[in-house]
């Protein structure tokens, strides 16, 4: 396919896309040196964290249809493990980083396993409870987590003896995580593994009858999503330098879910854009103070009325038309089951 002789004469799609991609990459690489305002750079880095969270939740909820409202818990597990190991136990960052991602993945697998029989609203409630239990644990297990006092003074990662404590350094660190999660999500989407996840989302019984062990794939979807959230959390702790249970509340999980819905559930670039958009709009609305969340809420409601599939809904026009058709009783066969 790559060595198609026809592409020698005509401009191949690869070539025509190569230039914009190269320019965008270059722009993103120099961005932290162009944005001199530390506050703006912080918002950019923060949106990087949310991109990782949204794209990873999209694997669980968008690809597989498992409605999880506890994603912030995995983010918190990653952050707390890194914080406690680097501050209390004085580990260096990198082993703590790996352990955070692994532990978060393991907890994700466990949650996936106990949630195998739950779906839709019930699964959502189970994930909310799970996340709340973990938050309460962090809040009350004071001898380990310092409870509401939080963990202060989290050291920045060091690489080859250099402390990566600048905003630019975190920009590149989270940038690597963003690239990794988006690449992985794309690979999943195009692989038989991803196809199995989509199949399971669309029709669990048919997927099982076609030889897909749906239990295994549900657990895998939870594990993958949790791992990336843990990885993001692990970078988040030294970036903030101080974490407390408040950082990983239920509202945080809802916010990540909103990013998915705004961007377009299932669409990788869509949810990444949703993450950036919501992060920035919350900052832009800061001058409105008291009314900030109200305006934000109204905007979300308006979006859901006028564009229920999100800004970049991946269903496409064709499926949308079919959905409308079946809503008015014109569609034939079963209507597409709504993805949560």
């Amino acid at each position, binding site marked *: 396919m790559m060595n198609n002789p026809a592409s020698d004469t005509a401009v191949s799609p690869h070539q025509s896309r190569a230039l914009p991609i190269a320019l965008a990459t270059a722009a993103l690489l120099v961005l932290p040196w162009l944005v001199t305002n530390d506050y703006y750079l912080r918002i950019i880095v923060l949106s990087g964290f949310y991109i990782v969270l949204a794209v990873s939740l999209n694997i669980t909820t968008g690809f597989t249809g498992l409605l999880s409202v506890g994603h912030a818990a995995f983010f918190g597990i990653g952050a707390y493990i890194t914080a406690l190991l680097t501050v209390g136990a004085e580990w260096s960052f990198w082993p703590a980083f790996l352990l955070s991602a692994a532990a978060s993945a393991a907890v994700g697998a466990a949650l996936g396993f106990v949630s195998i029989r739950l779906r839709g609203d019930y699964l959502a409630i189970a994930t909310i409870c799970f996340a709340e239990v973990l938050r309460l644990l962090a809040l009350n297990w004071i001898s380990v987590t310092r409870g509401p006092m939080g963990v202060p003074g989290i050291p920045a990662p060091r690489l080859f003896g250099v402390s990566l404590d600048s905003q630019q350094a975190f920009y590149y660190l989270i940038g690597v995580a963003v690239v990794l999660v988006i690449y992985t999500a794309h690979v999943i989407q195009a692989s038989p593994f991803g196809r199995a996840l989509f199949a399971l989302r669309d029709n669990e019984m048919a*997927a099982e009858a076609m*030889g897909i062990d749906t239990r295994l794939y549900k657990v895998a979807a939870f594990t993958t999503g949790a791992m990336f959230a843990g990885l993001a959390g692990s970078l988040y702790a030294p970036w903030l330098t101080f974490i407390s249970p408040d950082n990983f509340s239920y509202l945080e999980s809802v916010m990540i879910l909103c990013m998915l819905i705004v961007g377009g559930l299932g669409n990788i670039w869509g949810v990444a854009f949703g993450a950036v958009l919501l992060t920035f709009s919350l900052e832009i609305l800061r001058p409105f103070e008291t009314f900030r969340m109200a305006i934000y809420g109204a905007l979300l409601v308006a979006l859901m009325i006028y564009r229920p599939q999100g800004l970049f809904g991946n269903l*496409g026009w064709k499926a949308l038309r079919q959905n409308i058709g079946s809503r008015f009783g014109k569609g034939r066969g079963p209507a597409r089951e709504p993805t949560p």
Partner: protein
Amino acid sequence: MTLFQVGGVGKRFGGLVAVDGVSFSIAAGEVLGIIGPNGAGKTTLFNLMTGLLKPTQGDIVFRGESIGGRRPSQIAARGMARTFQNIRLFNSLTVMDNVLVGGHTQLGDKFWGAFFHTKAFQRQQENLRKEAERVLRIVSLDDKRDDLAGSLPYGAQRRLEIARALMSKPTLLLLDEPAAGMNTGERAGLIETIRTIQASGLTLALIEHDMKFIMSLCERIVVIDHGQKIFDGTPEGAKADRRVIEAYLGAEE
């Protein structure tokens, strides 16, 4: 040679006995028809055979091994595929992707080869795609491969279910009312398709209401009524059997 056997299989939902001690076998290469009035327990029987339901009694043997209580995915991997009475496609996926999902059990590596862009993985994907195109031609859907499955007309959706099942290279294919809702022309086409499938060496079992459809395909039929097997033999024999006639037309008081 017996490929598949159910022995005294029963399924009870609380007080309701849906399937009551049914026994029959399917020989390799044959097309078995399963008929019976509405609510006789035919689909429940299929669900027991494919593992979607666990039998409350009896045993099911497929390719020389008991499969009662196995997961549907394990049974599918052993070479049994099915279609559904109420169509169950992956509606938000394309026709091609639906068929490729059918090839799930044929694949070893499902992720890492894609992550590292290995040559072996690309070859495997290429072969799978070629096989999918071949299967789509059998059911004449090769020109629809990029359409969304949910957007297909009804008859095409039924054919797509068959294609998806064929893609798993099954030894036994179960079709649950494959002709339901089809017009005469579509039925004739479906009969041709099923004959082609049979000629390629597959064993089939199908549930159907249309006797003409059954007659033109099956050498042997099993009749189910009230969860029990009341007849096992040739279609002609069934037409003459008193209990079968009673089941369909009602007994004389």
